[in-house]
């Protein structure tokens, strides 16, 4: 099912040309510009693969290419991340059953044939942090190459229909989807070379150069050379343990936003949300805007963790929030049909007799994010586990440079926070990298100082205290 009317987004203007794809031989209508798994979801197909050992059905989970829950066989090639691979007319798609070998007639591409690109700075990730970094570096004369594995620029901004907080000069009062458009346009106008559908797979030192190895559109090998790398790879959604948490229809909150707000696809009819942090309460509101019923939000903590005002928006539209409750299990055959929740006691144990069952077809997990640090790890940056920043993060200094000279970090990959702070960190990283490669003038130090002050001001409230405590654990002082 596709969304026809939406109070914020006009999908009729967004959809591309109609094409036909073949799922297990059956023709399915899709639109150019949408990924395979999303098109299948619109056609009612939830099971994308079966696991190798237990033959359990699997569906989407993250929908941004990070979790491997959507691997399918596309035109005979297994292990394709169908959530970020765009449909093409006539494409043949099959469910992947366990481990499937590469067909014998397929010749793998070779690194010696890789396409080479040269510049000053390579930015990995085209979300708010990466775009802000690329814009600032390019503005100061650096040749910037930005790579992102998604088909659209903007990172998670492209699915945020709500208006942002902060100050107006930081885009407060502007919807995330609009911020993505503004930043993407600015990056292009400033001459940033953009490579979409391109996955960075490693950062290497080659003489006095950094080299980022990447794969474009699953097949085309590329090497990007520059003097500095900015890693702005964002985050991925966490999972929590409960019975049948792998049932298709147990989706990360972001996947539901991708389906409904990026591609205009109805995620389901009735949804239970787990987690009343900002992501959970914002998701509930977005579902209501898409005319999808939200039966409840459950939250294990005694209080709502997200901003009160986001919670108030959905409470006055009748969505209950059950604090001190948890999900016990998902039920259903090959797809979510029911969710069972229960109240928990002081020791976080479910209280017998408090179970409630909801008929739902989607269980949305909004139980937090963790920084995507794989590339930083591979590149040799020192990682530390910091609870306040939601996982392993790299140590960095006030200019966002990591323990490896020339590798910078910004946004959620440096610790889970907000798009507003991601943009500020991105600006700092972009300017600092431009200084390092000898393009920016020392006068930009004042601009860097302004963004550092803005960050401090943003973080000066109760929500920022937690973050500041975390940052203190990773900060490298001069």
């Amino acid at each position, binding site marked *: 099912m596709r969304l026809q009317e939406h109070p914020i987004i006009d999908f009729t203007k967004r959809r591309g040309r109609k094409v036909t794809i073949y799922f297990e031989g059956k023709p399915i209508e899709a639109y150019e510009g949408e990924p395979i798994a999303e098109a299948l979801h619109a056609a009612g197909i939830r099971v994308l693969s079966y696991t190798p050992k237990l033959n359990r059905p699997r569906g989407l989970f993250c929908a941004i290419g990070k979790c491997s829950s959507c691997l399918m066989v596309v035109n005979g090639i297994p292990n394709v991340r169908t959530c970020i691979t765009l449909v093409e007319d006539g494409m043949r798609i099959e469910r992947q059953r366990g481990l499937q070998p590469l067909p014998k007639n397929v010749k793998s591409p070779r690194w010696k044939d890789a396409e080479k690109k040269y510049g000053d700075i390579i930015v990995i990730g085209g979300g708010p942090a990466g775009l802000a970094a690329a814009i600032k570096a390019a503005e100061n004369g650096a040749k910037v190459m930005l790579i992102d594995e998604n088909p659209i620029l903007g990172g998670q901004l492209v699915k945020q229909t709500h208006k942002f907080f902060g100050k107006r000069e930081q885009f407060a009062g502007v919807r995330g989807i609009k911020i993505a458009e503004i930043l993407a346009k600015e990056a292009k106008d400033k001459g940033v070379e953009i490579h979409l559908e391109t996955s960075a797979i490693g950062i290497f030192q080659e003489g006095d150069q950094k080299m980022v190895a990447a794969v474009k559109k699953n097949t085309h090998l590329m090497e990007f050379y520059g003097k500095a790398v900015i890693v702005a790879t964002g985050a991925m959604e966490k999972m929590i343990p409960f019975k049948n948490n792998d049932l298709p229809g147990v989706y990360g909150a972001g996947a539901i936003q991708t389906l409904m707000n990026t591609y205009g696809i109805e995620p389901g009819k009735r949804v239970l949300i787990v987690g009343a942090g900002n992501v959970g309460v914002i998701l509930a509101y977005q579902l209501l805007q898409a005319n999808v019923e939200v039966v409840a939000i459950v939250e294990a903590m005694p209080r709502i963790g997200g901003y009160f005002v986001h919670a*108030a928006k959905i409470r*006055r539209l009748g969505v209950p929030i059950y604090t001190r409750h948890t999900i016990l299990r998902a039920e259903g055959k090959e797809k979510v049909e029911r969710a069972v929740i229960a109240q928990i006691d002081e020791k976080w144990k479910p209280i017998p007799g408090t179970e409630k069952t909801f008929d739902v077809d989607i269980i949305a997990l909004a139980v937090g994010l963790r920084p995507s640090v794989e590339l930083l790890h591979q590149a040799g940056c020192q990682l530390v586990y910091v609870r306040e920043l939601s996982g392993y993060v790299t140590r960095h200094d006030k200019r966002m440079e990591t323990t490896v000279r020339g590798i910078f970090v910004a946004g959620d990959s440096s610790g889970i926070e907000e798009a507003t702070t991601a943009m500020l960190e991105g600006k700092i990283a972009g300017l600092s990298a431009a200084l390092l490669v000898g393009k920016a003038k020392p006068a930009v130090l004042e601009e860097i100082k302004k963004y550092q002050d803005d960050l401090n001001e943003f973080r000066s409230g109760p929500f920022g205290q937690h973050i500041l405590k975390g940052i203190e654990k990773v900060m490298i002082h001069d």
Partner: protein
Amino acid sequence: MTEKYLERGYLTPEELKEIIELPSEERLRGKPVAVPECPQRIPCTPCKEICPTDAIKMDNPNDIPVVDYDKCIGCSLCVQICPGLAFFMVQYRGDKARVTMPHELLPLPKRGEEVILLNRKGEEIGKGKVILIIPRDKSVGDTPVVTVEVPLELAWEARAIKVVRE
């Protein structure tokens, strides 16, 4: 104060009164007046920045907004821009009150249409009549704003509407 509203997700009118001083009866009988329902310290300033009469006090971006009701001219810009959809306007007129609120759902009601009133926990509490609509393209904050005439006793209860069409 124990922040009970963070357990429930809504404020009671009594809690609101404890957090901010509400406009006087006399002021409420004058021009519409902006009332923020924004009790938690979060980094957010558009209401203060957009106010044409400098009626919103907020020394630090993390402070809660406090409206000087004498300076407020009832222009609704704060209602339009507020990212948290937490600003409302209230005005008393005879035995009715007019409540101005953001409305980002479909369908958008029509002027003169009767709508169902919802309180802060989503309960249906009565009916109101739509007096004025600022559609999205006319709103500085990209959010449609609706003014609804409600029974006076619901002035501090009605905070959302449900549009019912056959």
